[in-house]
């Protein structure tokens, strides 16, 4: 069983498995939307005293924060006990494209050349991680949801606004990948 789970999962297994997470939450009377936690943490930190956006009862969202805690543990379990021995099967054209940006493909989930503290404290690292994080926080709250809230929950409920949000995700992602990356990684 463990070895079966450890193998790389085909996408047609992963997709329905993600939907199963949504099913568990929906049948618990909750909504699958992870980025709400960013607001929950700001509210928990007491920002609601001064800023009305964070002035809500985060305790009603406590379940989502527990879900967040679980996801950290899940990440730990997955790499320590369910790690696949095979390298990531990335498309060869992506490998070639990234080599041009001087980001070598090392077969892991994340490029070891940039996911380090040393890289973080370079101009590029700060832009990528701190700047990228800022855009994630600002953007998901502005759009009222992220991949889970819009692409999965919203589209599953055939919400047109969620489709607009997902189109936005791609506008931003394509712009960054094709126009900004060649400049950043020059």
């Amino acid at each position, binding site marked *: 069983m463990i070895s079966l789970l450890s193998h790389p999962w085909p996408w047609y297994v992963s997709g329905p498995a993600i939907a199963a997470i949504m099913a568990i939450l929906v049948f618990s009377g909750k909504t699958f939307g992870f980025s709400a936690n960013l607001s929950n943490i700001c509210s928990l930190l007491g920002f609601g005293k001064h800023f009305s956006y964070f002035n809500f009862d985060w305790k009603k969202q406590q379940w989502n924060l527990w879900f967040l805690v679980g*996801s950290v543990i899940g990440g730990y379990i*997955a790499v320590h006990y369910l790690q696949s021995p095979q390298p990531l099967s990335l*498309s060869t054209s992506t490998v070639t494209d990234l080599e041009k940006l001087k980001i070598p493909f090392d077969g892991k989930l994340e490029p070891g050349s940039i996911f380090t503290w040393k890289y973080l404290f370079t101009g590029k690292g700060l832009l990528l991680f701190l700047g990228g994080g800022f855009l994630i926080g*600002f953007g*998901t709250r502005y759009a009222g949801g992220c991949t889970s809230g819009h692409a999965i929950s919203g589209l599953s409920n055939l919400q047109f606004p969620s489709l607009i*949000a997902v189109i*936005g995700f791609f506008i931003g992602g394509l712009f960054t990948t094709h126009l900004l990356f060649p400049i950043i990684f020059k």
Partner: protein
Amino acid sequence: MKALKYILTGILFGIILTKSEAVSWYRIQEMFRFQSIFMYGIIGTAVISGIILVAVIKKFRLKDTDGQAIQFPAKDKRWKKYLIGGSIFGMGWAMTGACPGPIFILLGQGYTVMLAVIAGALAGTFFYGILRNRLPQ
């Protein structure tokens, strides 16, 4: 007890997203370069399963485990915030290779540099909270 249930669901989520490779910076690059069906297959089959799930729940008026009718709140119809906010998030998604869930999952995997992404994301959330009333919705 309730906390445990959501922690366990979160653990499952962390394992599924790791094993699906949707947390991979490389996979997100591959997706934004249209060089594999992989990520589209994941999102596509997740949405198709989700559409069936929601349709079945609505059709049979299913209840949650507390006996309450399951409801799916409609998103409000303004479009600017979805397009602009979505595009801003998309930029951050491509840069870090992670959306909000994976940021925390990767932290659990031992990529402690994600703490910088979390700090950035909280700062971004905070600034949105301050500026919200001045932004087009």
